[in-house]
C-alpha cells in the first residue's frame, strides 16, 4: 500500500542524538521536519529507554525540546533506497512511500566491531554496547558475573551501566596499551567534559579490576559461556563468568550513505564544514562521519541541520565545538585502534560469518569479499555482512564494496518504482 507522500523541508534519518538535534533545531525555526527511525525507540543506542525511565539529564533536555518542537516523528520506519534523484523510499511494517524533501540529514550511527575468536559464538557473549542496550530494555543481569572486554571508551560506560544494573563486573579489559592511553590523556585536556566523564565513570567503577593492554583469546563453555581466557601477550588469565560484554570499538554504518552515492573518507562519510556530503543536499552527522560519541553527534546534528535550512549565522558559533570534537574523534581512533594480535585470534575452525557458519579456514585464500561471498556464502545470510563485513575487512584487508539496494532486506514492493505500481 502506498501512503500519501508527506511534504517536508527536512528529512532526518536516525533518531539518535545526532538526528534528534538535527530535527529539533530545524523545527524550532519553523521548518516542516520529518524524523524517521528504524526502531520503535527514540534516542538511538545511548538514550534507549530514556522515555520510559529518565536517567540522563542531557537526554531529557533534548527529548523534551524535540517533543515541543513540532517535529513529525515516525518510528519503525527505515529508509531503504532511492527511486530517482532526491526521491527516497521509506518502509514501515505495513506501508511504504517515497518522499522528496528539500534536504536530507543522515544520522544512522554506528555499530560495534566484532572480531572473531574461538568460542565467540557461545550464548552469553554479547557486544559491549549490545549487552548495555539490552539491559536498558529488561535483559536480566542482576547478580551475574560479567567480563567487559575489547576496546574503546564505550567499555567504561558499559561496565558502569552494568554495575549500576546490579551485575557483578568481574573485570574490565582494554586492549589498548597503557602507553597509547597516556598519549590520549594529553589530548583530553582540550575536552574537560570528557575528563569529567572519564573520572566520573572511574568512581562508578570503584572495585572493578581494570586492566590495560589485555585482550580475550578464547571463550569456553558447553551451551553458554562459562569462562573467558585473556592475555597481555606475556601472561594469561582465565575468568569464570556468566556473560561477556565484548566489542572492539564502533564502526560507522555506511550502507545508506554509500547507496545514496556519498563519498567516504577512510571508514567514515566525508563531509565539508557544514556537514554536507559529496552529494548536494545530503548531510551527515554523528558517528557516520567518524566515531566520536554523543557530544560530537549533538553538535554535528545541529550544524548539519542549520546549514541544510540555510541558517548560516546560527552555525557560526558551533564551529569551534564541532572542530574540537572532530579532533577528539581522530585521537580516539588512533588510541583505540585494534592491535595486530587481535587479527590472529581466529583459529581455522572459528566461525567468522555467523549467519552461514563460514569458518576462518574456508575464507583464507580469497582475495576479495566478492569472491569469498560467491564461493562460501560469507556475508550472504540475513545480516548481509553487517557483522562479518567489518571483521573480514580487518582480518583479510578486503575493501568496502558498493552497496546495492536494498539496504536492509526491504520488501519487494518497496523497490518497484511507484509509477510502475498498480
Amino acid at each position, binding site marked *: 500500500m502506498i501512503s500519501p507522500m508527506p511534504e517536508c523541508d527536512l528529512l532526518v534519518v536516525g533518531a539518535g542524538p545526532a538526528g534528534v538535534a538535527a530535527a529539533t533545531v530545524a523545527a524550532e525555526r519553523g521548518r516542516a521536519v520529518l524524523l524517521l527511525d*528504524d*526502531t*520503535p525507540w527514540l534516542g538511538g*543506542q545511548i538514550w534507549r*529507554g530514556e522515555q*520510559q*525511565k529518565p536517567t540522563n539529564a542531557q537526554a531529557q533536555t533534548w527529548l523534551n525540546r524535540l517533543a515541543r518542537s513540532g517535529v513529525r516523528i515516525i518510528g519503525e520506519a527505515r529508509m531503504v533506497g532511492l527511486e530517482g534523484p532526491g526521491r527516497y523510499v521509506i518502509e514501515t511494517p505495513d506501508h511504504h512511500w517515497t518522499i522528496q524533501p528539500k534536504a536530507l540529514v543522515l544520522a544512522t550511527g554506528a*555499530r*560495534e566491531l*566484532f572480531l572473531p575468536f574461538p568460542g565467540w*559464538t*557461545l*550464548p*552469553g*557473549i*554479547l*557486544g559491549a*554496547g*549490545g*549487552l*548495555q*542496550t*539490552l539491559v536498558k*530494555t*529488561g*535483559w*536480566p543481569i542482576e547478580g551475574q558475573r560479567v567480563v567487559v572486554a575489547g576496546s574503546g571508551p564505550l567499555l567504561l560506560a558499559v561496565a558502569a551501566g552494568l554495575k549500576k544494573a546490579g551485575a557483578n563486573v568481574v573485570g574490565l579489559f582494554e586492549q589498548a596499551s597503557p602507553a597509547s592511553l597516556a598519549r590520549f590523556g594529553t589530548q583530553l585536556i582540550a575536552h574537560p567534559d570528557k575528563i569529567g566523564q572519564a573520572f566520573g565513570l572511574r568512581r562508578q567503577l570503584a572495585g572493578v579490576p581494570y586492566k590495560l593492554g589485555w585482550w580475550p583469546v578464547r571463550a569456553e563453555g*558447553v*551451551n*553458554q559461556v562459562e569462562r573467558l581466557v585473556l592475555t597481555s601477550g606475556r601472561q594469561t588469565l582465565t575468568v569464570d563468568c556468566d556473560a561477556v560484554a565484548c566489542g572492539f570499538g564502533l564502526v560507522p554504518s555506511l550502507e545508506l550513505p554509500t547507496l545514496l552515492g556519498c563519498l567516504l573518507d577512510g571508514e567514515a562519510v566525508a563531509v565539508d564544514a557544514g556537514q554536507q556530503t559529496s552529494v548536494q543536499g545530503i548531510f551527515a552527522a554523528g558517528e557516520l562521519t567518524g566515531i566520536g560519541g554523543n557530544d560530537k553527534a549533538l553538535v554535528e546534528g545541529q550544524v548539519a541541520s542549520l546549514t541544510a535550512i540555510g541558517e548560516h549565522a546560527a552555525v557560526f558559533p558551533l564551529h569551534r565545538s564541532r572542530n574540537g570534537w572532530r579532533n577528539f574523534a581522530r585521537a580516539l581512533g588512533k588510541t583505540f585502534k585494534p592491535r595486530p594480535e587481535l587479527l590472529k585470534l581466529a583459529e581455522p575452525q572459528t566461525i567468522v560469518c*555467523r*549467519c*552461514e*557458519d563460514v569458518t576462518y579456514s574456508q575464507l583464507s585464500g580469497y582475495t576479495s569479499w566478492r569472491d569469498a561471498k560467491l564461493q562460501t556464502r560469507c556475508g550472504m*545470510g*540475513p*545480516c548481509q555482512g*553487517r*557483522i562479518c563485513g567489518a571483521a573480514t575487512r580487518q582480518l583479510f584487508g578486503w575493501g568496502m564494496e558498493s552497496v546495492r539496494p536494498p539496504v536492509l532486506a526491504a520488501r519487494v514492493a518497496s523497490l518497484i518504482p511507484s509509477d510502475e505500481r498498480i
Partner: protein
Amino acid sequence: MPEPEVINVTVNGQRLSVPAGTVAASAVARAGLVGFRAPVRGGPARGPLCGMGICFECRIMINGQPQVRSCQVICREGMELRTDDLANA
C-alpha cells in the same frame, strides 16, 4: 490510558510477567533460556549479539511469525514467544 507496569507473555508456553518496556529477547532470557536459534550447520544454539537489530542472532518465533528479531520487539500483553520451533533454524 496509562501504560500497565507489568506485561504478561508466554515463553515456549510458560507464563511470564515482565516490566513494561522489556523487549522479547530480554523476556526469553528472563525465562532462563540461553539459546535462541539453531545455527545452520549444527552446534550449540546462538543467542543475541548486537542488541540493535543487525546480527539476526536473536531470531525467534513471535505470535506465530518465525524469524523475528526479538531484540527489536517490545513485549505486548499476551505475546507468544517461542524458541523451540525448528522454523527458527
